[in-house]
């Protein structure tokens, strides 16, 4: 019998779950032999309130390993996360939503209540509609990362996380050793050519393609930051590289920071300001600076702008 394991998703998009499946053939022995999956809404039918739905309190079975994906955005998420904490010996936060808030935490930059009301007043929505409140979980004041609500034993960011690293975390746990994870920045795993400070003083929007010769290896392309694009490689945790280059860079597209800050509690916005400054690039040339925090807006990083400041910034 394998190690009892429970999987849960909070405010997840299911991309983290797909990343688990993308472990591929190696996943088959993991889920059929090494692990004994006791609860996982996406894959199996264990229910919170008993198989016939007659129970009144939510229940998840005891497990040695627990994996949660997604951020914490409503009261049901809190309840599920607390139940997972209670029932799992080792709790892993998987994916940038779970570790840093992820894209949904962009909502933390706005007044949630007004925004939600606006969602039910769009062009095609029937007039008079209001935010639903019956039998749907009530929202929290903002989006939280999992470790803001319960103790998390291991964090594995990525949007989505790298399947090879997910497998490494699981296998290392089973073998009782610390996992081997890349600790440095995306740039450290990037083979592009760096020629040092150039004539670039401002960053441009990604409305033209990068310069490169099609078919040539990534190592023949000049660093995208040096080409004048805002590339967040310097301020983003390594881990996405699969085929010898960071994922986006391998498609000749600049990094937007989806693995979160290099240090767990780093601030990608401050770090990026510093990185640009040290390359002699004017930070004011970045359109929409707040979206530098698009993946790491939990932990109080992204807050609604006060009207006054908004006027100053725009």
């Amino acid at each position, binding site marked *: 019998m394998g190690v009892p394991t429970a999987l849960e*998703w909070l*405010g*997840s*998009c*299911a*991309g983290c779950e*797909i*990343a688990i*499946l*993308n472990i*591929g*053939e190696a996943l*088959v022995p993991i*889920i*059929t032999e090494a692990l004994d999956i006791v609860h996982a*809404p996406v*894959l*199996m*039918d*264990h*229910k919170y*309130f008993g*198989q016939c*739905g007659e*129970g009144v309190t939510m229940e998840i079975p005891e497990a040695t390993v627990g994996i949660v994906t997604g951020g914490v*955005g409503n009261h*049901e998420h809190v309840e599920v996360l607390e139940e997972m904490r209670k029932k799992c010996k080792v709790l892993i936060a998987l994916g940038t939503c779970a570790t840093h808030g992820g*894209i*949904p935490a*962009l*909502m933390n930059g*706005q007044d949630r209540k007004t925004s*939600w009301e606006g*969602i039910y007043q*769009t*062009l*095609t*929505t*029937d007039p008079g*509609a209001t935010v*639903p*409140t019956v*039998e*749907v979980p009530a*929202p929290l004041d903002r989006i939280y990362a999992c470790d803001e609500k319960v103790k998390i034993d291991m964090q594995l960011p990525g949007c*989505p996380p790298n399947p090879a690293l997910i497998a490494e975390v699981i296998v290392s746990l089973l073998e009782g050793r610390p996992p081997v994870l890349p600790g440095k920045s995306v740039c450290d795993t990037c083979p592009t050519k760096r020629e040092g400070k150039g004539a670039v003083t401002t960053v441009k*929007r990604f*409305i*033209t*393609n990068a310069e490169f010769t*099609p*078919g040539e290896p990534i190592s023949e392309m000049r660093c995208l930051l040096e080409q004048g694009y805002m590339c967040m490689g310097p301020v983003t945790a390594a881990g996405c590289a699969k*085929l010898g280059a960071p*994922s986006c860079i391998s498609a*000749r*597209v600049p990094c*937007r920071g989806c693995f979160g800050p290099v240090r767990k509690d780093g601030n990608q916005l401050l770090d990026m300001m510093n990185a640009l400054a040290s390359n002699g690039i004017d930070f004011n040339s970045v*359109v*929409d600076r707040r*979206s530098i925090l698009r993946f790491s807006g939990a932990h109080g990083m992204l807050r609604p702008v006060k009207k006054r400041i908004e006027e100053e910034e725009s």
Partner: protein
Amino acid sequence: MGTVLNIAPVSRIEGHAKIAIHLNDAGNVEDAFLHIQSLRGFEKFIEGRPAEEVPRIVNRICGICPWMHHLASNKAVDGCFGVTPTPTGHKLREMCQVMAHINDKILHFFFLAAPDFVLGPDADYAVRNVIGVVKAAPELATKVVKMRQLGQMMLDKFAGKAIHPIAGVVGGFAKPMVEAERQELLEGSRTLLDFACYALDFAKTNVFAKYMDTIGSLGVIKTGFLGTVDRADGSFRIYDGRQRLMKADGSYVDFEGADYAEYLGEHVEPWAYSKMPYAKSWGEGFNLDYENPKGIYRANTLARINVCDQMSTPKAQAALEEFRAAFGRPAQATLLYHYARLIELVYACERTIELLEWEGITDPNVRARVEPRAGRGVGIVEAPRGTLIHDYTTDDNGCIKSANLIVGTTHNIAPMNMSVKQAATSLIKGGVYNQGLLNQVEMAVRAYDP
């Protein structure tokens, strides 16, 4: 006071939902709901973002169909900035989209839905899952895992990221395809096409033939359908075309995506975060009564298969003819979504090959010149779960001023509620229920692949 059965979470689906079945004192179904549990607010928090960044933000709406959001968004931004992508840019986007459809269909049919059919709807819940399938049919399972991985890795390698893609860009695509990549993708696609034909045959004999009675009764409702067809000849389309809104009697209107708001409205019920799109243009309002629905149409595989005049690829066309001969047009049985899904799988493989064999596919001219500006754009693609609509307005700086999204899954929220109630009402009588019956209620949801 009667009892409420809370089936939570609805499992082996791709989102967050619960079913509440309300029983009266006699133990019969008084009412049944599918509650949609999550709301994140993408429409709002993309406001202020530079529009060209949005295709790599909204893909996080769904990790199962990120390519669909990515591309609908790119098309909307094309519209805002008034740019027409180069022909090769369009075709590379489409190729990635159809490849993503391939992976999605393999995932849905074999990983999520198949346990109900391979192990049986009443099998013990502890084994009625993909792990159970692996143990019960290891050969099939290994093949499925391999094929899904092949498709996923082809996309990952060519486009950098298969999940939460970044390679589609306003004006076209971020990188051209070179001959070596084309050859490799072609080889993979041919393998996938073989598998698709095998999967359809497998399902025809082992699933559809065996479960004909269930198919004819479970969650069956009568509705209209929405899909996308070729502007010229009404063929099945997923990347681009005209929208077709069909009534239950088979009559239809076609419209251009930009006019969607004249045809579709979104109804809001207080018990689901998800809005419920309906056919506003029918002028009959909105009603969820499954015996007498108003304004209700369905989207997703069965809808597309119903609205199209034909499939543009030969193997898929043959499958469609066989399907129509057996079930008519429009076919209404809910479990036929699975059958339609496999016909689409065959199409997606054939279409990938067709695109790769197009002589212009390796043309280096993949991105048109773009200038950020104020404008409006409506981008529509067919996501696995239905017609996906992104509608953006930008300011002078090319940043998002407002957005309206109608997400594929939501088209089927109203019909799923009807199917749930139909299934619950016909299966649960006099207070008699068990986990097998309740799983069949869930199967009515699972067919829609929400």
